[in-house]
């Protein structure tokens, strides 16, 4: 109860500050639209080679995960600014739960992701995507878990490094393999075997597969199962890490 209240106070504060920044709102809305309109048409002629039926049923889930992961990776940057102005310390000196201080911030990132998901799915349908409501719901849920994990990790990284200059290269270094090995844009199955083996070690790839499978309607399959397991594991680990940094945040 207290936890919900505390995290909601933090969330409301974050949201208020973000909404004051129109760029945040506009870019957040435009991202899914642009990806879908400018990248989707490139995939349409290739779709047979992927072993998929419908370009948008294939592409929308990938986009969803991409927005979840990449938007969330940058969530930590605003935390550094707050830390510098003593905001984190002021929050940490209140009796509020350390996890609530983190999770309140995640709500904001998850809300942003949810709005983007709605736009993406609506637009996907408009462009000819075929998917069931349950499949979409489950897929979005998996994406939210993964996005929450990435945002929590980004916050933890921000509080550990306390410097944009240190954090930016680290984020870039993480993003590269994620983008290349998780099959967000193109499926890993079309590559050579060694590349596909390598991608097996990328947890996010399994979440992408899971989201795709659930959009297609294969809700009981192993792809959804493993995607769900990985999303949960990553989420739990990241929350634990983030809470730990809020707890000690030593400076």
């Amino acid at each position, binding site marked *: 109860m207290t936890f919900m209240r505390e995290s909601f106070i933090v969330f409301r504060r974050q949201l208020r*500050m973000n909404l004051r920044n129109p760029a945040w709102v506009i870019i957040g809305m435009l991202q899914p639209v642009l990806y879908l309109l400018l990248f989707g048409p490139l995939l349409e002629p290739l779709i047979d080679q992927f072993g998929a039926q419908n370009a948008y049923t294939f592409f929308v889930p990938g986009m969803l995960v991409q927005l979840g992961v990449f938007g969330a990776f940058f969530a930590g940057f605003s935390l550094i600014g707050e830390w510098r102005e003593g905001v984190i310390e002021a929050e940490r*000196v209140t009796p509020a739960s350390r996890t609530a201080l983190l999770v309140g911030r995640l709500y904001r990132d998850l809300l942003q992701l949810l709005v983007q998901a709605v736009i993406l799915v609506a637009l996907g349908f408009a462009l000819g995507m075929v998917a069931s409501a349950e499949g979409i719901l489950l897929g979005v849920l998996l994406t939210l878990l993964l996005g929450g994990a990435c945002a929590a990790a980004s916050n933890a990284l921000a509080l550990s490094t306390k410097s944009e200059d240190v954090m930016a290269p680290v984020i870039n270094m993480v993003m590269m393999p994620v983008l290349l090995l998780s099959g967000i844009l193109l499926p890993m199955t079309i590559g050579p075997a060694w590349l596909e083996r390598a991608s097996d070690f990328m947890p996010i790839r399994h979440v992408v597969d899971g989201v795709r499978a659930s959009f297609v309607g294969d809700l009981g399959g192993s792809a959804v199962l493993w995607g769900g397991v990985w999303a949960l594991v990553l989420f739990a680990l990241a929350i634990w890490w983030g809470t730990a940094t809020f707890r000690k945040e030593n400076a």
Partner: protein
Amino acid sequence: MIHARGLVQTFDTRQGRVRTQVRAVDGVDLDVAEGEVVGFLGPNGAGKTTTLRMLTTLLRPTAGSATVAGHDVVAEPVQVRRAIGYVSQAGGAFSGARAGDEVVDHGMLYGLPRDVVEQRGKALFERMDLPGLWARMPRSMSGGQKRRLDIVMGLIHEPQLVFLDEPTTGLDPQARANLWEHIRDLRDRLGVTVFLTTHYLDEADALSDRIVIIDHGRIVASDTADALKAQVAGDLVDLELVDRDRLADAAQRLATLVDGRSEVEVVDHHVRARVPRAGRSVPGLIRDLDRVGIGLESIEVRRPTLDDVFLSLTGRSLRDADAAGPQEGGPTTALDEAAVPVTPGTATGTPTAGPPPGPTATGSTTPGPTTTQGALR
């Protein structure tokens, strides 16, 4: 309110390949009673902020223990947090959010209902001279307003104890004097115990009932400003004579008051010496001089400054101890507080420089635009 025993904090730092351990706080014992205003004085890097962060549960002590407001900082951090307010060196309100929103959110994190926080916050804005700034962003506030806003945030849950980390650093003299008034008010009107760090000598002197001096992570002294000064140096007595020929005679008579740790100095028309409890002995000296016909142009009795105290405790001047060196515009001379010029006529009547704590002796620098800044940065 605060009882700390053997607090230690070590940090691992790395310079290139060499890993070193910094003992930022090295065995600090502290006791602060309810209703006290304690000034925590020390040069840059002495360990003030680190000590505060341990007392406010933000940093876990490497060793030692502390109870704050009746609760152990390690075992019961939540209870400690409920009872204390902390205004950090950096502040606490985000520059791009509205001041009122920040105050309300901060108060609500203590579990207070919104209407209570809003009402209290607005009352505190009035009390802290921030009228009409509720909807303003801290980014467009003056340094003094911003600092007062930070203090409002630290007080919103009506703590019994507040920690202020360098509340006036970076403020101009008027803003400092104004903030001093507000800090005095905390105790006088709200009954709050105040623990404040500073590296301004005049500030510690003007605000605190008691001064705790820290250097290299260790407490080197803890007493009232007056007792610290009395224990160390004695008051500086400076007599300016009308007639140079009588200097030797006057010096001899002054020497009888000196307790051996100090000697009499003769410069131009002046004889000077450090005299313990000058308020008690100087009136007699003046009567004596008057009787033998040694005419005086002026008399000055000056209480020792905290810089004298620091010098005698550590062998270094407070300002030398600061690696950064003086940078603020103000004069960096020790504060000449409570300088008590006395004319011979009145001095024989009522001693103006009383023994510590005498009526003027406790006097501190008068806050105001003319305040000498013992700036240590």
